[in-house]
């Protein structure tokens, strides 16, 4: 069992938990993810790793209530334990393999959307600790849905907030912000990294293409085992089939077939709706 040592709600629908998983914590790197199974009857849910503390043996996960399983995860409290937590999965971010000299000359911009802001944090933190220049753009529908603002401010050079309704920061999309930074403010970046909903990563990639800025995206595909066994996570990248779990989750955004990836993400939407109804029943029975 994997004990939850702390929990806080970042928004009414997004929770943050620190979970005991010593082996995982000691191996985790920026860009990797984990799989969680709340209880014996639960699904295996892939979640990004938002932080890790090797000495305390804990990993931090940030979950948004979307379906039955993510709602179940969020219903757990401090002191409860998950049945299974496994990882780290996937290949660490490219930059973790780069030399200090290589990194010193590079300037990064991260584009974070919604709950995707959480996995951006360990990447920015890692780069910041090594003296690399990093700007971060966070996008959310409205002010109340912005997460990781203070944490991010502490580890990046410049933080730009965008909201759809203008309740905080720039009113508009993250892509418009990026264009403004590059075209109007004269910012120069060597690498963009976009993490968020698939649709946001698609448009961030289109904007980056226009700006001739290389972009890495992190694909949150369907998965079962997370070790390459099921092939549910397959995506077309540069015309080739790739498994997001073992060959990703990060890919060159220019090469990803986002439309196919978005369609595949909806594969079990009918079953998931049923699961939500079914799930409610189970709770009603006093599970």
């Amino acid at each position, binding site marked *: 069992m994997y004990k939850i040592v702390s929990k806080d709600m970042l928004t009414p629908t997004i929770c943050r938990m620190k979970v005991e998983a010593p082996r995982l914590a000691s191996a985790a790197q920026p860009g990797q993810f984990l799989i969680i199974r709340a209880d014996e009857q639960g699904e295996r849910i892939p979640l990004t790793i938002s932080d890790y503390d090797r000495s305390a043996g804990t990993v931090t996960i940030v979950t948004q209530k979307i379906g039955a399983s993510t709602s179940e995860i969020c219903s757990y409290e401090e002191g409860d334990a998950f049945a299974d937590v496994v990882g780290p999965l996937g290949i660490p971010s490219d930059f973790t393999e780069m030399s200090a000299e290589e990194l010193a000359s590079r300037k990064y911009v991260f584009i974070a959307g919604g709950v995707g802001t959480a996995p951006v944090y360990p990447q920015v933190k890692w780069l910041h600790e090594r003296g690399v220049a990093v700007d971060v753009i966070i996008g959310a529908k409205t002010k109340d849905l912005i997460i990781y603002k203070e944490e991010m401010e502490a580890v990046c050079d410049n933080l730009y907030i965008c909201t759809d309704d203008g309740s905080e920061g720039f009113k508009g999309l993250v892509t418009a912000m990026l264009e403004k930074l590059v075209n109007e403010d004269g910012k120069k970046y060597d690498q963009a990294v976009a993490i968020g909903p698939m649709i946001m990563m698609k448009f961030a990639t289109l904007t980056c293409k226009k700006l001739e800025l290389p972009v890495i995206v992190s694909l949150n595909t369907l998965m079962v085992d997370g070790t390459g066994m099921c092939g549910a996570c397959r995506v077309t990248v540069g015309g080739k089939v790739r498994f997001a779990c073992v060959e990703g989750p990060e890919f060159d955004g220019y090469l990803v077939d986002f439309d196919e990836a978005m369609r595949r993400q909806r594969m079990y939407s009918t079953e998931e709706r049923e699961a939500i109804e079914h*799930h409610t029943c189970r709770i009603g029975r006093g599970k």
Partner: protein
Amino acid sequence: MANKIPRVPVREQDPKVRATNFEEVCYGYNAEEAQLEASRCLNCKNPRCVGACPVSVKIPQFISEIAAGNFAKAAEVLAEDSSLPAICGRVCPQESQCEGSCILGIKSEPVAIGKLERFAADWSRENGGTKPVVAPANGHKVAVIGSGPAGLACAYDLAKLGYDVTIFEALHRPGGVLEYGIPEFRLPKDKIVAAEINDVKALGVKIETNVIVGRTVTIDSLLDNEGFSAVFVGSGAGLPRFMNIPGEHLNGVFSANEFLTRNNLMKAYRDDYDTPIHAGKKVVVVGGGNVAMDAARTALRLGAETTIVYRRTEKELPARVEEVHHAKEEGIQFAMLTNPVEVLGDENGWVRGVRCIRMELGEPDESGRRSPVEIPGSEFDIETDTVIMSLGTSPNPLIARTTAGLETNRRGCIVADESGATSRPGVFAGGDAVTGAATVILAMGAGRKAAEAIHKYILG
């Protein structure tokens, strides 16, 4: 005299009934049936069956104990060589191994060795079980990667020799393919798989789930930091193959691994589990191995009309004869000499059919099998809403990529000699990780051999 008795038929669940449930197909022998069948064994001086068994079970001995009514003793004889007899009795391809070389098979039918093995193992489990003799602890630690048949067999033998064995399993339940791959109706999970794994644990073997070697830990960290003297890699053949035809990534196309894992490991067929599964109304399964049969029979039980599409003829089907027979009885359609060329989609990106081409058998290839050749212009469409690709698997590259000095061949399999020794001292390997996808019993055989080699490596 003995061989005048016809082979005792085994009782099975009615095909019409079992096509709608996930309970075990075969009921197995009762004591009376088992003793009668056991009496057919000639107890050959030079038993060919033993030589044909990858783990060299002393077949005539355990059968004569059954014939004599000494069922507990029969189970003890089995336990000397096999860690998973109730499993092997159910899933081994006996017709090409022990039973295939039974002398009775020449003129009539071979002894039902598999069903007898199953009987002895089941009887023993239901009557308190056997506990093999374990040597005193020798203080050496061995790590086993993967809790499938290879890893369990290796761990079992090492534990009997007095080693302190820890198995690392990537998934949340131990068993490997026994758990995620083979369906409940062929191999009950709690009653049989969990019970036989508990027998291995009873010897002191520890199983740590949720550890992915190559990610959570590495072979180097196990050897250098955790005090293990040797490592056995039994990580299986994990990565599913696809055909690389148009439409293969439409919604509704799955690998057999995904479909079976959702149903077996993740229990999608049970109402009390959250796992979603898509079986649709009409399912086409592409492939002809045991996994294809398992996927088709699972889809059928989930309510779909199911067709198996295979590019050769029924004679070449690599699946066990018994599985093909069972699949047919249950109402699975077989489209032989047929190969998909494209998966057809609807306007929403979901599967609506498979375009296939008819095949004929051409000249034999290097393996001696006649290779199928397309008949030009013979394309036709099969209407379906789900396609399950069951085309075999290739080894997971994770361990090879993260272990310096571990040689692999061009198919990505770990290179190991007869004893399981790899290019890296102290690292042994066996099962599908070495051979590519094969059978439970071959993996167990490799695990046993490696256990012997590890024993020699550590204690000379």
